[in-house]
């Protein structure tokens, strides 16, 4: 992990978050991480180290939690986030082909970000819109009844 390139990250948002949770203990760790991610877009290692020294929660515990849950990412995200459903309803209607098509179009695998930082490609367990299966989301837009041939056109709308 490269600690160097983000040395310039401001600690101010972190201070605000910690101020809102006085005497933070273990039980507050997940909410704190959720807030850090909302503020910075991801969990920057330098900010986590600062959070550790300020709360007294050990870095190993913070990392243990941050790496356990799918929601947290330790790398910055792309400008647009694609969420393709890999849930059962989508799978039985050919969702796998959509996942493959996105992967092929962008040249990245699941949970990776394109080199130009344009897209982060994630798959999720169910988008809760199974009647539109197969479904994918780009940022907050839903695309239902997907076919692999539609993928390229849709992604081109996001620059």
């Amino acid at each position, binding site marked *: 992990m490269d600690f160097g390139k983000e040395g310039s990250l401001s600690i101010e948002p972190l201070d605000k978050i910690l101020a809102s949770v006085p005497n933070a203990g273990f039980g507050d760790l*997940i909410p704190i991480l959720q807030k850090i991610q909302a503020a910075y877009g991801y969990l920057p290692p330098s900010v986590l180290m600062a959070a550790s020294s300020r709360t007294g929660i050990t870095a190993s515990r913070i990392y243990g939690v941050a790496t356990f849950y799918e929601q947290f990412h330790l790398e910055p995200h792309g400008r647009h986030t694609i969420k393709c459903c890999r849930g059962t309803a989508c799978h*039985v209607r050919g969702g796998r082909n959509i996942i493959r098509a996105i992967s092929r179009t962008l040249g990245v695998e699941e949970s990776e970000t394109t080199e130009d930082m344009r897209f982060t490609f994630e798959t999720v367990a*169910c988008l809760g*819109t199974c009647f539109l299966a197969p479904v994918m989301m780009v940022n907050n837009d839903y695309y239902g009844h997907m076919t692999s041939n539609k993928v390229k056109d849709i992604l081109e709308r996001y620059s």
Partner: protein
Amino acid sequence: MTSLQEAFTKARIQWDKLQDSKVPIFFVGAATCGRAAGASEMLERLRGYIKAKSVDALVIEVGCLGLCYLEPLVIVHKPGAPRVCYGNVGPDEIIAILENHVLGNDPCAQWALGKVTAGELEGIGDFNEHPMLRRQVRRILRNCGLIDPENSYHYLARDGYRGFLKALEIGPGKTLEEVKASGLRGRGGAGFPTWRKWQFCRNAPGETKYLICNADEGDPGAFMNRSLIEGDPHAVLEGVLIAGFTLGASQGYIYCRAEYPLAIHRLELAIGQMRELGLLGENIQASGFSFDLTIKKGAGAFVCGEETALIASIEGGRGMPRPRPPFPAESGLWGKPTVIQNVESLGNLPLILNNGAKWYAQYGSESSKGTKTFALAGKVERTGLVEVPLGITLKDVIYDIGGGIPSDKVLKAVQTGGPSGGCIPAEKMDLTVDYESLTEAGSIMGSGGMIVLDEDNCMVDIAKYFLSFTQEESCGKCPPCRVGTRAMLSILERISAGEGEMADLDKLETIAQTVKDGSLCGLGQTAPNPVLTTLRYFRKEYEDHIEKCRCPAFVCSQMISYHIDRDRCTGCGACARICPVKAISGEAKKPHVIDQHVCIHCGACLSTCPDVYAAVYRRSGELTRYEARREKRDKTN
């Protein structure tokens, strides 16, 4: 703070006024499913039009009516006429309904699904007679799609919090008795009798007790809990109060997946409203019962739906299960007696208290009482959220309510219980939906996912799909689950790649048994179910993969080869342009060919070849499958 009695009165007045409103009202289904289907754009158009033309009309955003395949749904109130529900309402349709029906004399019967209230309207039948609704019994979902989930008065006017007041009146002991008499069993998967868990917890020593509402909903392909919370959050919260009161808990938690932002938002609003109404905090309604509620956002780990893992997660650690006993009812959150209850289990409680156990148990089978919601999806005509009496047959759910299988395909199996459940074959559709018979068939009731599979689904692939899910989600704490799911998955991968051996089938069964018996938590103990049920009912399909190297459903991509029929191909070149690896060549207007050594079996050519030609066909083993050819493109379609 308004007193609760005062609020009841005001709510009644507000609700009655709404019922015979002199102003037109649009009730727009704007839960996650409605929004995904385009309700947001439709709302924007509607609001814009109303504002621009100064139309006197109200717009109320409501939850989901369950007919998701017809979203966006709108119920329209026109003064003096029965309310009508419309389906597939886009921005243009809503304006047409406003102009022609609300402001004119044409009720737009072409988009109408039925009348929601009594009265006559030319060409429009009763909404309750809609084929998807006719067989349903909507009790838990009674308010979903009909009330404004963000307005507590709507809930109050529909008997809201009467069940809780009843509990306060009769006391915790009698409340427990009532729940026991109702026969309520947990709706989160295992079906444990709710009263028994409560009794353990009540008898456990210690003053401090906790109640947790499990809204983690991890089954990939199910959304019952989300829909209930989005459509009627107070129903769940009233259940939380009833349970908390019975247990003598002082604090409750709602553990909700972070992927449900709208549900979380509505819970937060509703909790604020409860405070206003004096339904949370110290000495609630002067009963001596003090209780507060906190929402905890899950962070995306399937195993956190398991109760001990969920507790670990609330405590701020990695969400890993721990051995039971001690059961959470004796030693749970922070070591205190804790009851964990699914969203829908809690949603049942107001009904039981308010209407009595006897009323509640009217529906159901011997051992499974009441109604249950299911998220019906997959290869079925009418997908959505349904609520049926327990004891109904699978056939009734899939054919009567779901409308059968689309495109004249044949039903193959029904998957219930998600990754912990199994596949029930088409010949067992007379099976009744209750805890015992589903377990006997090798599956489980689960939390309510019901996925219909047709002849185009491969059962080896389905088993592989679920195993790859559980393998990935296994927390890794105990070896049978960690190693066993991986071992089963790699066998399934071999089989679906055409490299399996007959001995693999026995191996699968042996490992499955070990994982079932040796795993610490429910994830591992139930992970083999999809494999065991498909082996039990679809062994021939496994054998086909192994011995004949073919996938009869044409799903397992490594066993499928793609070819172009010389007689059908006109050389239009569409396939050659789309092929990502340039495996297709040929001169313009001459038949093309696919280079089998280059092809990656992605199927892009198959879906691109215009269906007037349908020149791409597939082979798997000795089987050949052509696509249906349509002589002329149907322009009207």
